[in-house]
Each structure stands twice: as structure tokens, then as C-alpha cells.
């Protein structure tokens, strides 16, 4: 009896704990405190699913509590012989149908959101997206603004109310660009280019990081995102365009596998000599001391020489 009471109390306590924590804690959590339309859509989807899930949890917990309280063995029911019923078609049909309906109810908004996130956010503005190439290197972030011809390391400035089209790639291990308050993550992969739209609704500083494990320096591979008003952003772009140029020598230094947390600004981009989405082994070759371009040329020559 004692344990029975404890158990039902515990379970009731757990239910209330879940509800209370959800209600009280939500606004402080980064993912549930969106600052842009992408993160907002995701938050809405999450809250919707939490609603359905709490309903399911509630049904199961109530039934569970009822069963173990009501049908617990006690001295007074010691002679009771339970009926050996083998099932009930009707009941089983009901609890097959309800999950089917819930899955449909969740699948529709999920698919809608999946498709919506492929496009640039429509509201509140219809401006052209800013294109930013985000390249992850063990263990740092390189952001390239090809249209503005600037490149930054470990920090990202963006204008508010304007979609940012990230073109993601990696120089080595697989990473994931994630700015929780602006929206979900996507992988950076060497030899591949993935696209991700994000947007900030208001000026502010947001945390960005690599979310996918990349080894020793993983925990330190972070960056700051500053969303600025259009004017501030334009001013920053102008300043950046007068920074020093990025040389290949300097860039190859950045290819080193090491934790690097300094913030840098350059007025030219590495796309002039390498696009990691097309040349997956650039960083590997640089680290080995092989000139990545020269080597490729030689191999081509020798190969075509011997086979044609």
C-alpha cells in the first residue's frame, strides 16, 4: 500500500512538474525565444507538437495510474481470479486510429514548414537576401560576403529584416552552423554546399556555434552574430572594405588545425583561389605542405600522359 501511494503520488507529481516547468521556463530558453521568422516558425511547430504530446502523456499517465491503483493486489482481493480476455477489436481499433490522426495532424504542419524553410522568409520585407558563405575549419568560422567582397573570421554582421542566404561548406570535418535564436542548424560538409536561410527581426547580439562534433576544439568553435540596422550594417561593410586584403599565405595559416578565437576582417575573399565545396582536400593538402593547386595540375599531366 505504501509503495502504491508513493508511486501514484510520484507520477502525479511528475505530471505537474512537467506542466509547471513548461509554463514557467519557456521564455528563457533560446530555441523558444526566437528573434527571426525562421526560428519563429520552428517555435510554433514545437509548441504545437508539445501540445499534442502533453495530451498523449496525460492520457497514458491517467490510465496507468488508474490501472495500478485500481487493480493492485490487496489482501481483500486475494481470491479474485482475473478474466483471461485476449483483447478487444474495438478498443484496439480506437487506439490505432487515434495515433494515426495525431500523426496526420502533426505531419501536415511539419511538411508545410519543411517546404517553407527552403524559401527565403517572406515577412516582413521582400529584399534580396545577403549571400554569406560560411566555411567551418577546425576550429574556427570563416564568413565570406562575395557581393561585398569582404571576409570575416569568427564573427558575423548582418542587417536586420533581411534574409541571409548561407552557403555552407567545410574545409575538413563535418560541422553544423547553428544560431538558435535565428533558426535551426544545417551541416557544413567539405566538397558539398548546403543552403540555409535565416533572418533577424531586430538588432541584437546572438550566439552562434558549431553544433556538430568536430574533435578537440569543438566546444570553442563559436561565433558572435550581430544584427544591425540597415544603416549600421552599410557603415560596417564600408569599414570592412578598407581593411587589409586576405592573402593566400594568411588564409593557409587559418587552415591549421587549432583552436582560434580571434575575430578578423579582410577586404578580399578566399573564393579567389579556393571553394571548399568544390575542392574538398584543400586544407588537408595545405597541412601536409603540398601546394594544393600545383599538385592537382601535375597529377592531371602525368595521368593524361600515360593513358592517351
Amino acid at each position, binding site marked *: 500500500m505504501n509503495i502504491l501511494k508513493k508511486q501514484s503520488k510520484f507520477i502525479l507529481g511528475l505530471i505537474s512538474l512537467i506542466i509547471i516547468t513548461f509554463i514557467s521556463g519557456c521564455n528563457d530558453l533560446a530555441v523558444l525565444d526566437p528573434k527571426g521568422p525562421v526560428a519563429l516558425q520552428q517555435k510554433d511547430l514545437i509548441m504545437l507538437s508539445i501540445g499534442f504530446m502533453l495530451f498523449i502523456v496525460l492520457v497514458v499517465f491517467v490510465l496507468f495510474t488508474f*490501472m495500478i491503483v485500481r487493480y493492485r493486489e490487496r489482501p481483500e482481493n486475494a481470491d479474485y481470479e482475473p478474466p483471461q480476455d485476449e483483447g478487444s477489436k474495438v478498443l484496439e481499433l480506437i487506439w490505432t486510429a487515434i495515433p494515426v490522426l495525431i500523426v496526420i495532424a502533426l505531419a501536415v504542419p511539419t511538411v508545410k514548414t519543411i517546404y517553407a524553410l527552403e524559401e527565403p522568409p517572406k515577412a516582413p520585407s521582400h529584399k534580396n537576401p545577403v549571400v554569406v558563405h560560411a566555411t567551418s575549419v577546425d576550429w574556427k568560422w570563416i564568413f565570406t560576403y562575395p557581393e561585398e567582397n569582404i571576409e570575416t573570421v569568427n564573427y558575423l554582421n548582418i542587417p536586420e529584416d533581411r534574409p541571409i542566404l548561407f552557403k555552407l561548406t567545410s574545409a575538413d570535418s563535418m560541422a553544423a552552423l547553428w544560431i538558435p535564436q535565428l533558426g535551426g542548424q544545417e551541416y557544413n560538409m567539405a566538397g558539398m554546399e548546403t543552403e540555409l536561410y535565416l533572418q533577424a527581426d531586430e538588432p541584437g547580439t546572438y550566439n552562434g556555434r558549431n553544433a556538430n562534433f568536430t574533435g578537440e576544439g569543438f566546444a570553442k568553435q563559436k561565433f558572435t552574430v550581430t544584427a544591425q540596422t540597415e544603416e549600421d550594417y552599410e557603415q560596417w561593410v564600408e569599414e570592412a572594405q578598407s581593411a587589409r586584403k586576405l592573402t593566400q599565405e594568411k588564409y593557409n595559416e587559418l587552415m591549421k588545425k587549432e583552436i582560434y578565437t580571434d575575430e578578423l576582417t579582410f577586404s578580399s575573399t578566399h573564393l579567389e583561389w579556393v571553394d571548399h565545396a568544390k575542392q574538398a582536400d584543400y586544407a588537408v593538402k595545405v597541412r601536409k605542405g603540398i601546394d594544393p593547386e600545383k599538385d592537382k595540375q601535375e597529377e592531371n599531366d602525368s595521368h593524361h600522359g600515360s593513358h592517351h
Partner: protein
Amino acid sequence: MKWDEFFVTGDPFIYAADASIVFTSIGIVFVLTYYKKWKWLWSEWLTTVDHKKIGIMYIIAAVLMLFRGGVDALLMRAQITAPGSEILKSQHYNEIFTTHGTIMIIFMAMPFLIGLINFAVPLQIGARDVAYPYLNAVSFWTFFFGAMLFNISFVIGGSPSAGWTSYVPLAGEELSPGPGQNYYLLGLQIAGIGTLLTGINFLVTILKMRAPGMSIIRMPMFTWSTLITMILIIFAFPVLTVALALMTFDRLFGSHFLTLADGGLPMLWLNLFWIWGHPEVYIVILPAFGIFSEIISTFARKTLFGYKAMVWSMVSIAGLSFIVWVHHFFTMGANAVVNSFFSITTMAIAIPTGVKIFNWLFTLYKGRIKITSAMLWSLAFIPNFTIGGVTGVMLAMAAADYQYHNTYFLVSHFHYVLISGTVFACFAGLYFWYPKMFGHRLNERIGKWSFWLFMIGFNVCFFPMYFLGLDGMPRRIYTYEWADGWFDLNVVATIGAIGMAIGFVLLIYNIYWSFRYAERETTGDPWDGRTLEWSTHTPVPFYNFAIIPEVSGLDAYSRMKRDPAQEKKKEYKPIHMPNYSGKPIFMSVAFFISGFGLVFEWWWMAILGLIGVLAMLLLRSFDYDDGYYVPVDEVERIEKSYE
């Protein structure tokens, strides 16, 4: 290679581990010698082909691995509790979460369940052993030496550190040079041989060796879950074999399957890994469902509600498990069609799982529920697994998953399903079948303390992690900053982990206490069981059943007890049994040697080991040992001894 490269050095934890390994080994050797138990160990256990003993050895190995994986977990919790702490260095932390994950899935969850399957399934179907007793021993010993190969990495050569998923390019030669990752590849490869053989063995056993009258729809639910699991193993494990082989070729022989250079395709690994990996999740959860079904039905004193629906839901879960693997990398940038498809297939798994949950609940309905330790673990499974399940549905919604992926939300989800699913089932099954294995029950009082500490600790540990995930805490970071604001919840989680640890220690203490003091079990049927394993004596004679039982319906033993007139007069016949053999352990040692050689790229050793393996295969081919017959008077003598 220098000695200080061969042995891992420079870390006090490792020296402590070195010392404990040496002392434990000396201790074991001393005890065995002092009590003159070497011959007993060899002839009763190491060479055995008896499914019951093999099952027990699996469980012992799994409990040791649970201890190792648990220590890893506690070290991780210690490091991650407070921001900026430096108890472990980054590299060490990475090694520990890699070994934690790999050990818990491959060397703890699977062998624990396979151990219970080994022990219980042949008894449940009224068989005298499995279809291939010799192969069964090969399965165990390849698993065991695969596990040993993986485990010595932390004192010799260094542990793998690319995560249990070992994503390339990180796990490739360029970014993770050295023996660590090789240990992962070869340890899993060798253990995988054993798993595949288990799959074939038990599939044929269940299909062909059921007692007369036990049609396929009269099989106990645990046997059903095992049958489906074995089919999953047979089709999923070859995929892992290939995936591991490709990475091994890349690392050891310079091929370019998964490399950054020369056209390699790292995504190939992710796909192959999860095409195996998702069915693997169900390989460790379906037998758990089977165990809960048996226990809930036994202690509610009711036949399982919706037997056929239970079977069909497992079949559909197994089928769906092969078409959901992309949900492990929704964030890879696949197009909307792909992500939508895999979102929906994944959510669809919730339907058969939901059906099962309600069938379990209605098995309790109008029952007379006896709360034993085994039943406590099984009952606790229902609400806890529901939490794990619904968060799984949330993760299945691809658009939302972009926010959960790689975070503590995910960590919490899979611990909720794997602990309240698999681990609770292992403990429940252990309490349930323990009397049959060892001839005495485990103590209920200690068992209940252990349960409540572990179960509450589990919730305290993992529930906060959902919120840490939603607050942007990625998995696998070894440290964070005060400014991140994750300190409070991490402290709570660590307190929970301590609760779980104490619960585990109490379980081990319970085994010791019960061994010393518990009342011996003589009836053979301590729980008023429903299935055939309870119909034979305790301890189980080596031939299991003197006379193969005849089955007249579901819950075969319940029917026999209700209708004792059915019992026929006892007329013994000679019983054919297989001989024990030392070849499986020798062959697995040869695999170990070969694997160790490959880890360090010492080719002579690798080839030497391989020759050993081939030699054992050759010997086996010329081995026409067809077992022996237990004569009738011997059977009579043994049967009398139980009266």
C-alpha cells in the same frame, strides 16, 4: 613505436585504471588457483555450448560493461557539471563519451538482451538447446573478445574519440590518426560476427525447434520479439560489416571510400551507419518489449491483451525501421521531399508503438497486479518510455528537428527510450529469470530501494536535459561558460546520475546478498509463471526437459497448471546432447590477436591471428563430433534428484 606511445600515459585516471586492472587480474588468478577452480572454469564454462551458461556469461559480461560505461558517464557528468571545469581535458572527454556510447549500445545493451534471450528462449519454446550450440559459443566468444579489444584501448594505444557514430572525415586517417579509431573498427567488426551468428542461430531455433503444438501464434511474446529481432540482425548487421570494412580499408590500406581527397564520399558512411543504426535501435528495444510483455502478463495474472496486435505492431516497427534512417541527419540539406518522406515514416512508428502501450495498459485492466521488483521495472517502463516516445515524435518533425538536432534534447530523448526501454527491461528480466538461473530470488527489499533510486535518479538526470537542449546546449561539448546559463540544470542532472549510480551499486549488492542469504528456490515456478521455462526444474537440468512438453495453446504452462489431467505418464527416452568444445574460444582469441595486429598495423601479427582463425575452421571441418546420448537411467537419476 615507443613504450610511452604504446601505453597511454600522463593521466592519473589512466594510472588508476592500469593499477585496478593489474590488481583485479592478480586477484582473479589468485582466487582461481587457491580454490583450485581452473579446471572447473575451463570445462564447465569456457568450453560450454549450453545456451543457459552462455546466456549467463553474456549477462556477466554485459554487467561489467554497464559498470565501465557507467563510470564513463559519471566522469562525463563530473566534467560537465560546472562551467569551465578541467577535470578532464577535451581529448579525454571525447574519448570517454565515444567509449560510453559504443560500449552501452554494442557491448552492454545487445549482449544483456542476447544473454536473456539465450537463457530464456530455448526454455520458452520447450527445446533442449539452440539449433547450433557450437556456433552459439562462437557468438559469445567473438562478442567477448571484440569487447575486450575495444576496452583495452584506454590503456594501450588510446581510445577512439570520434563519437560512437564515428562520422567521417573526423574519424578518418587525416583527422584521427593513430590506433584509437582502429580499435573501434576492429572491436565492432569482431563482435559483429558473433551478433550475426546469433541472428541466424535463434531464427532457425525458433522456426524449427518449438515443442509440439506450439504453432507460431502460440509462441510467448518474448520469443516473438526475439524472432523479429533476429531478422533485423540478419539484414542490418551486414551493412555495418561493410561500413566498418570500408573505413578500415581507408585507414589501413589507403583506399578512398570516405576520404576528402580523390573522390571519397563521407556521406556514404553516414548513410550506411544509420541504415544499420536505426534497425539496431529496434534490435535493442524489441526484445525489451518482449520481456515487459511476459512480466506484465505474469504479474497482472492475465493473458497478454491483444496478442496478435502486439505481434503485428512489432512486425511493422521492424519493417519501418529500415526506412527511417535519414531522420538521423535531416540537417544534411536533403531536399524537402526527402525530409518530408522520412519525417512521416518516422512519425508512423509512433502508431504501432502506441498500440503496444495501450495493450500493456489493458493487460493490467481487471488484473490482480502483484508488485515485485521485476514488475516495478516493467511498470515504470510505461510512463517513462511514453515520455521518450513523444519526444521522439517531436524529433521526427524535420523542420523542428533543425533546432533539436545535436543538442541535449536529443541526448535526453534517446536516453529516455534506451534506459527506460532497454535498461529497465534488462533489470526486469534479470529479476524475473534470476531464480531460474541461480536457484534463488533476488531480495525484494533491496531490489525496491535499487529501483526507486535508479528510476527517480534517471528522471532527475535526464528530464532537465530536454530544457538544456531547448536552451541551445549542444551535445558532446566538454565544457561551457557561465554566460551560457546552463549551470543549474546541469547540477540537477549530475545529482540524478549519482542516484542512478547508487541504484546500480545496490543491484550488485543485491546479487551478493541474495547469493549469501536468500532462501533457495525449489519449486521451479516462483512467480506462478505462464510459459514453459517455469515448467522445468530449478536449477534447470542441462537437457532442460526430460520430456518435451506438449503445447495446447497460448500461455502453455498456465494451461498445464489449470488442467493437470493433461500431463502424460513419464516415459523417458535417451536424450541427445552436444559436446563441449574449446575451439570457439581459441578461434576468438585468434580473432583478437589478428584484430590487435591490425589496430597497430603490425601485419605479421594480423596474419598470424588470421592463420589461427583459418586453422580453427579447418579443424572444425574435420570434426565429426555428433554429440552423445544421455541414457534413460541417467535421466531417471537426475529427475529423481529433484523430488
